[in-house]
């Protein structure tokens, strides 16, 4: 219905259909901004490595990279409290790393090793680390929005002030579970932040061609009595600002929010996809908006020393190298795992 060409926008949250309000100046302290940068560098490096390992036949099955979308996960990772909950999709490497999950088990999981985050049982699409508040990556579109509500409801009932953040794609906004989840969250005033990463494409179909409104999430907010929020998902500062404010709102008991972050995946949908369906111009335009190089330029322009950034980059590389080496060195999971942990008694026994 609408073309998939990116609109021009400014670093801002905008009420859909209204002119953009002035940009609130980002006031995050330098330590935060360096941390955002470090997170993005690590994510980028990690996924590039994953992609190389795939080409070497060491990552099997499928994996969905978030290359180009790092600012969203990085900002929320920075803004969340350690006991907050994350729910993500199959495109969830970044969101997992963002919660402080070490690289090694994530890499090992992609490689199907016993030292993997789930010993190889889940795979790339189901990264979960409960101890880090990473409550799962979900591979069937829609469901996890309703599950995120449950975690938020639980926090409310238990009287903790934990906040749940739930990430999903633009394509997920057209499935029924999106609607059910948003309505319930609003009615129950749940402490949950829904973050739509609008990267303009479903798998190979432009979101505009199958969506009745221009902004798949922001233009639906009013249907749940929520204010629309459209933000530049490739601007780490803007993302951090909205992450902080939406989490604070949820923590304060103001109920849910729905954020649409405009971003772009640099590569294909999954490892099998060369992404030929996108125009060169579109890709070029978005590479120019790359959140990582853009942020680096901004930091340098604002006086951060190049040495500091180079140091961060080097540290990230060695972390990645180390994680890769360890993961690669680890064993394949033993066959006994196939019938492990179907039930809480640790086994798969369905009879007596």
């Amino acid at each position, binding site marked *: 219905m609408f073309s998939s060409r990116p609109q021009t926008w400014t670093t801002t949250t905008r009420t859909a259909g209204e002119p953009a309000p002035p940009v609130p100046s980002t006031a995050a302290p330098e330590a935060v901004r360096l941390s955002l940068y470090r997170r993005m560098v690590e994510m980028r490096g990690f996924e590039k490595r994953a992609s190389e390992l795939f080409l070497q036949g060491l990552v099997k099955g499928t994996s969905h990279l978030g290359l180009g979308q790092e600012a969203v996960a990085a900002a929320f990772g920075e803004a969340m409290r350690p006991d907050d909950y994350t729910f993500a999709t199959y495109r969830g490497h970044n969101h997992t790393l963002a919660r402080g999950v070490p690289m090694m088990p994530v890499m090992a999981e992609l490689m199907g090793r016993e030292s993997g985050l789930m010993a190889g*049982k889940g795979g790339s699409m*189901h990264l979960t680390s409960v101890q880090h508040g990473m409550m799962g990556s979900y591979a069937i579109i829609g469901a996890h929005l309703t599950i995120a509500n*449950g975690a938020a409801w639980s926090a409310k009932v238990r009287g903790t002030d934990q906040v749940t953040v739930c990430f999903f794609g633009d394509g997920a906004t057209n499935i029924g579970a999106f609607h059910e989840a948003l309505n319930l969250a609003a009615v129950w005033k749940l402490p949950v932040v829904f973050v739509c990463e609008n990267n303009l494409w479903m798998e190979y179909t432009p979101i505009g061609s199958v969506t009745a409104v221009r902004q798949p999430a922001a233009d639906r907010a009013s249907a749940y009595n929520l204010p629309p929020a459209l933000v530049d998902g490739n601007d780490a500062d803007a993302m951090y600002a909205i992450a902080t404010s939406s989490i604070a709102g949820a923590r304060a008991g103001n109920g849910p929010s729905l954020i649409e972050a405009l971003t772009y995946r640099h590569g294909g949908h999954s490892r099998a996809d060369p992404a030929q369906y996108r125009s060169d111009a579109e890709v070029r335009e978005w590479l120019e908006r790359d959140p990582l190089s853009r942020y680096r330029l901004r930091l340098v322009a604002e006086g951060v020393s190049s040495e500091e950034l180079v140091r961060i980059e080097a540290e990230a590389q060695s972390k990645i190298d180390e994680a890769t080496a360890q993961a690669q060195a680890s064993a394949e999971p033993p066959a006994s795992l196939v019938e492990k942990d*179907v039930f*809480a008694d640790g086994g*798969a026994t369905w009879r007596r």
Partner: protein
Amino acid sequence: MAEMTYRDAVAVAIAKEMERDPTVVFLGEDVGAAGGVFKASVGLLEKFGPERIVDTPIAEEAILGAAMGAAMTGLRPIAEIMFSDFLAVCWDLVANEIAKARYMTNGQVSLPLVIRTSNGAGVRFGAQHSQSVENWAMMIPGIKVVAPSMPRDVVGLLAAAVRDPDPVLFFEHKSLYATKGDVEEGEIIDELGRAALVRQGRDVTIVALAAMVPRALAAADVLATEGIDATVIDLRSLVPLDVTTIASSVVATGHLVTVEENPRLCGWGAEVASIVAEECLFDLDGPIVRVTTPHVPLPAAEALEDVAIPSPARVVEGVRRALG
């Protein structure tokens, strides 16, 4: 010892568990102020308040999603899906999410939750409100499946289901809600996966579930008048499945008849039959006969529904075939 209805036994069991454990919460459509469309949760809102007894929109995915997310973060939710037919609307949550979470995460996630639903025919509600879908549940690895046939078992099995660390699909039979039975005083907690020998006989083993149990017993009475002495086993749960009780009875009688309300193909009786045909083949003295609802959607009219669901007469006929 008190006599109570199957319907009241539900509310009694939920109330007991909620009193015992403050993390138990209960959600569903019309379950609070209205006390449930089958009046199986009357009084709970008054007792436990709107924080723990929660009315939802008509949004079954949202209901089960909320239950799942709550279960993985410290609560023990009981979610009601009003009619078991509506499990189809939220089957993704049941089959793909709730059932698989522990396994996919290598044991990181526990889901101590119960999905209660009204199952089965007998009230002339037609094809979309009368199905027996216990076999839908049985085929999904990762959930336990329970279906009581009498008020006492509602209390004992629902308590066990709520305390169980795994997700349990709890099928109440809508044609049984008004039936009465004795329930002993005090705490009743059953073990999931233990079948009950509700009649002991020498000649044939009849295995039944939920509303088919009274029908199997009625059939056994008829058979007795013909000199055929039947064992009737009330399975009570499909997962875990009490193979031990079934198999030892078949070894003794040499004959097996299953009585299923679910439609024929891939019903739970097929699973039972296949186990016996593998593990006790040489103990069998005759064919394994399955008495099932025919493989049809259900008709609404009384005259037709009565023909579709296994009757005592059809069970009798099935036993005769089994005995050859």
